[in-house]
């Protein structure tokens, strides 16, 4: 019990010493510029944005380095103006990181779009070629059919012509026979008239 109270007393003493020292310190130094903490917040927000962290690590590191330099200067000489300026620079660096990330993202998107446009163009060209081939094939088929039809007609014509010729021959033969018969008949009658 006694030991515990002694420990508490020690702790109390330590805390009050720390507070006393810091109070003394504070009375000598100007208050820490709010801009520095605001810049840290802006930086943290950018860093905690996954896209910024992954796409603009260099710009983020530059922002962080500026902030660390501001902290160093604050610790060393409490130069309020210098720290405020560095804080403003760091804030803009965090903004640059955001902009750089946006730029990288847009670039990636552009690349993707270019690829899909090329794919579409290729598809269109293939489709056109296919269509042209189909058209050519159809024309060929049509030509073949027309040729066949012409050939069929020609054969038919030849057949008809042959038939005609045969008929003519038959007719001629029949005529000749008739003439002969007539001549024979005349020959039979002639002696009587003579």
């Amino acid at each position, binding site marked *: 019990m006694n030991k515990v109270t002694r420990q508490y007393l020690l702790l109390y003493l330590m805390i009050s010493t720390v507070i006393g020292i810091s109070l003394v310190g504070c009375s000598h130094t100007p208050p820490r510029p709010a801009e520095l903490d605001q810049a840290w917040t802006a930086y943290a927000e950018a860093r905690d944005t996954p896209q910024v962290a992954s796409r603009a690590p260099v710009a983020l590191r530059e922002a962080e380095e500026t902030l660390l330099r501001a902290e160093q200067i604050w610790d060393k000489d409490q130069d309020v103006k210098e720290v405020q*300026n560095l804080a403003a620079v760091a804030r803009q660096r965090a903004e640059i990181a955001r*902009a750089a990330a946006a*730029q990288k993202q*847009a670039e990636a998107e552009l690349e993707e*779009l270019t690829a899909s*446009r090329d794919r*579409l*163009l290729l598809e269109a060209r293939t489709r056109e070629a296919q269509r042209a081939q189909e058209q050519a094939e159809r024309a060929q088929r049509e030509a073949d059919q027309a040729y066949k039809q012409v050939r069929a007609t020609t054969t038919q014509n030849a057949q008809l012509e042959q038939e005609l010729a045969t008929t003519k021959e038959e007719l001629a033969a029949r005529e000749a026979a008739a003439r002969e018969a007539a001549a024979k008949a005349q020959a039979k009658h002639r002696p009587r008239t003579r």
Partner: protein
Amino acid sequence: MTSKKTVIQLLLLCGVLGLSSCAGKPPAATVSQMSQAELAVQQASKSKAPDYASLELYTAREQFAGAQEAMHQKEYTQARRWAERALVNAQLAETKAEAEQTRRAAAELRQSIEALRREAEQPASARR
């Protein structure tokens, strides 16, 4: 005798030091920061920043003008600070403009892709 000599020497040294600081030769850090800022502002002006990040570019130019003014007044620390601000704002203007330019190119490409898709679908439906 020797003490007199040293005093004179010391005085001379002080005079030289005082002169060198009074002559207003700007510190190397300021000079370097000024030229960096100038370069960045010029580069941003040549980029698409005037179109797509005019506010940031304007800020950078104003800050650089402030730096030049401070240089004129021989307020070199102030000049360096303005130059630092001008540099980051010029860089921000350029990066923002680049992002916007790329975004616009992507949007344009997306539109032309849409047109291609429509074209690809139309003859097929017309033929059916």
